[in-house]
């Protein structure tokens, strides 16, 4: 059941034809290709029929054969998949989970952490850009298992949460009378999930929060509603006596384009000399929007340079295997695209730019994908990045969600390189003095500072922003904050132990897993 939208409509037939071409050329390669092994089921290692031969044939063996061929055709590291007989793995999803590289990065981390599948009807659900169900607060899970800890990272304006003065730094204590921190009851965790992750408007939930600045408890009753997010917030042009501008950028979604356009016009009209972009909670989105941000920062410094060159596996050096279009590098986009139609700004309108030679970025591990592309793209154009915060997530990869037999699969199909041909940051970018040695990030200028929930975002005394301002003045960093910093919280790594998940298909939770102790 394919998604019936522009993208899938365009792409439905292409994989078949491209796969047929591949099959005609003898199929894809594997380590076993030169010495094939055939068993009684007809499977021959290293020999791949066209995925089109199995598409939409919903017997388990055909679904697995489709996955095998499709992965061989489009997976970025197809030649690192160990080709096993699909008949010997019982479940379709279990088999899909074998169709990825098991190699490690230099740091010892898994090379591929981004291999997913979802029921297609769940994936197909869409919402109006920027719209979600909720109360208007975004919450970060610091510890997912008891003693749990979760804190409000920011609130959206004009929402039930902001109307009740719920602000960044509020720590969650209770949900509908359930002890959020300590409960070990799975039924109570269910109450927490139902309250935190409403699936419809009108859900009334009582929360108890503690303001970590004042240590006072607040009980509030909130009713879920449609929340219209504001991805660009807190634009400031008055920092450092007007020399420094700032804005918070939360998502590369369609509605952000106009807000970015307005923000950069406001910044360009001021007298700022430096800019701080706060992408600490920006997990990415539209890549071309990242290139717009790159242009609006770097302007003439980006002229004639590539923002990102998309790279598929080596079977497709010149062609996007999904769209069939020729691969052309993405430039720094200097015009309004119109991701969301805006009658007031015609597509093609020139974007404002600050023509900066350097920019400060505030990051955490929630800074991901398209947000990392801003960093990498500008570095490729020799615009200096000064990074304040924690290391980014490390996701230069992307995929085209692909449906077969009511399941939608996500397998890494492309990566990206900047103007200098650099794109290896699977351990993320991190400030130079980062002390966390579990990963091997690309270290760049800046300071390692833990997220500071004691101050509002955009407040000049908030740790990341204040460090950016002081680094700008004196070029030095405070002692690096570790993940155990008492000043703020650094994100924990979610475990894959038995879990209660947010079962909604959209959430405002940045780490949306809560563990119930008695389920371990």
């Amino acid at each position, binding site marked *: 059941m394919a998604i*019936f*939208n522009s993208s899938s409509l365009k792409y*439905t037939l292409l994989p078949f034809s491209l796969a047929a071409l591949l099959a005609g050329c003898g199929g894809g390669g594997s380590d076993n290709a030169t010495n094939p092994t055939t068993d009684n089921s007809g499977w021959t290692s290293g020999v791949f029929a066209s995925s089109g031969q199995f598409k939409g044939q919903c017997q388990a063996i055909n679904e697995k054969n489709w996955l095998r061929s499709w992965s061989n055709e489009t997976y970025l590291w197809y030649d690192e998949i160990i080709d096993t007989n699909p008949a010997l793995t019982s479940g379709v999803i279990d088999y899909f989970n074998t169709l990825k590289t098991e190699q490690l990065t230099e740091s010892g981390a898994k090379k591929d952490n981004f291999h997913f599948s979802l029921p297609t009807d769940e994936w197909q*659900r*869409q919402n109006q850009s920027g*719209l979600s169900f909720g109360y208007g607060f975004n919450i970060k899970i610091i510890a997912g298992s008891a003693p749990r800890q979760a804190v409000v990272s920011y609130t959206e304006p004009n929402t039930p949460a902001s109307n009740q003065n719920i602000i960044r730094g509020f720590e969650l204590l209770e949900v509908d009378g359930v002890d959020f921190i300590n409960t070990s009851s799975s039924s109570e965790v269910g109450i927490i999930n139902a309250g935190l992750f409403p699936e419809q408007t009108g859900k009334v939930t009582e929360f108890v929060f503690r303001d970590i600045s004042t240590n006072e408890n607040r009980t509030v009753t909130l009713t879920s509603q449609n929340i219209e997010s504001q991805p660009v917030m807190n634009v400031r042009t008055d920092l450092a006596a007007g020399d420094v501008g700032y804005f918070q950028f939360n998502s590369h979604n*369609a509605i952000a384009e106009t807000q970015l356009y307005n923000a950069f016009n406001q910044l360009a009209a001021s007298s700022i000399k430096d800019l701080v972009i706060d992408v600490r909670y920006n997990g990415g989105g539209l890549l071309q929007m990242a290139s717009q941000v790159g242009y609006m920062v770097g302007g003439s410094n980006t002229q004639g340079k590539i923002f990102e060159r998309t790279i598929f596996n080596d079977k497709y050096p010149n062609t996007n295997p999904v769209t069939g279009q020729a691969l052309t590098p993405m430039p720094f986009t200097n015009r309004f695209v119109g991701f969301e139609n805006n009658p007031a700004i015609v597509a093609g309108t020139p974007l404002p730019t600050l023509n900066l030679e350097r920019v400060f970025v505030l990051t955490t591990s929630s800074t991901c994908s398209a947000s990392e592309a801003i960093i990498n793209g500008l570095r490729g154009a020799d615009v200096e990045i000064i990074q304040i915060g924690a290391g980014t997530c490390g996701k230069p990869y992307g995929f085209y969600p692909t449906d077969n037999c009511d399941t939608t699969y996500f397998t890494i199909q492309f990566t990206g390189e900047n103007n200098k041909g650099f794109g290896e940051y699977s351990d993320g970018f991190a400030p130079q003095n980062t002390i966390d040695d579990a990963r091997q990030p690309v270290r760049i200028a800046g300071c390692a500072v833990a997220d500071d929930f004691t101050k509002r975002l955009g407040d000049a005394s908030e740790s990341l922003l204040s460090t950016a301002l002081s680094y700008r003045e004196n070029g030095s960093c405070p002692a690096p904050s570790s993940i155990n910093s008492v000043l703020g919280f650094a994100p924990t790594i979610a475990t894959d132990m038995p879990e209660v998940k947010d079962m909604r298909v959209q959430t405002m939770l940045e780490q949306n897993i809560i563990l119930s102790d008695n389920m371990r």
Partner: protein
Amino acid sequence: MNILLAISMTAATLGLTGCLAQSSEPTPKLQHALLIEPNSAKVADAITQLLHSSQVQLTDDVFVTSSTVTLEQLNHKDPQGNPIMGKQLNMPDQFELMIKGERCFVRHLDSKATIELKQVLCKINPQR
């Protein structure tokens, strides 16, 4: 699915043009429109039919103040809490409300797949 699209587009085209040949009135133009009364449920139903999607979440005032709406995939997140689709190359889906004569239509901007929005009242959008 492409067949369904073709059927949808053909049906819509026939719907827009088929009966016009019997009329001596000037052919009404297809123009951008606004809903006179909010009806997000009917709009969502129309879009889910066009998309063959199970659910579309819209603001209550969709098409009341603007003739277009942009959709995006819900924000599915990975076990690390980051969006699965953090790096999208595609343009998001956009839909527009159109009016021809007295009839209202929802049209997918890119494919031009169209469906009539029945039992609603709309008017020409003077801003478009």
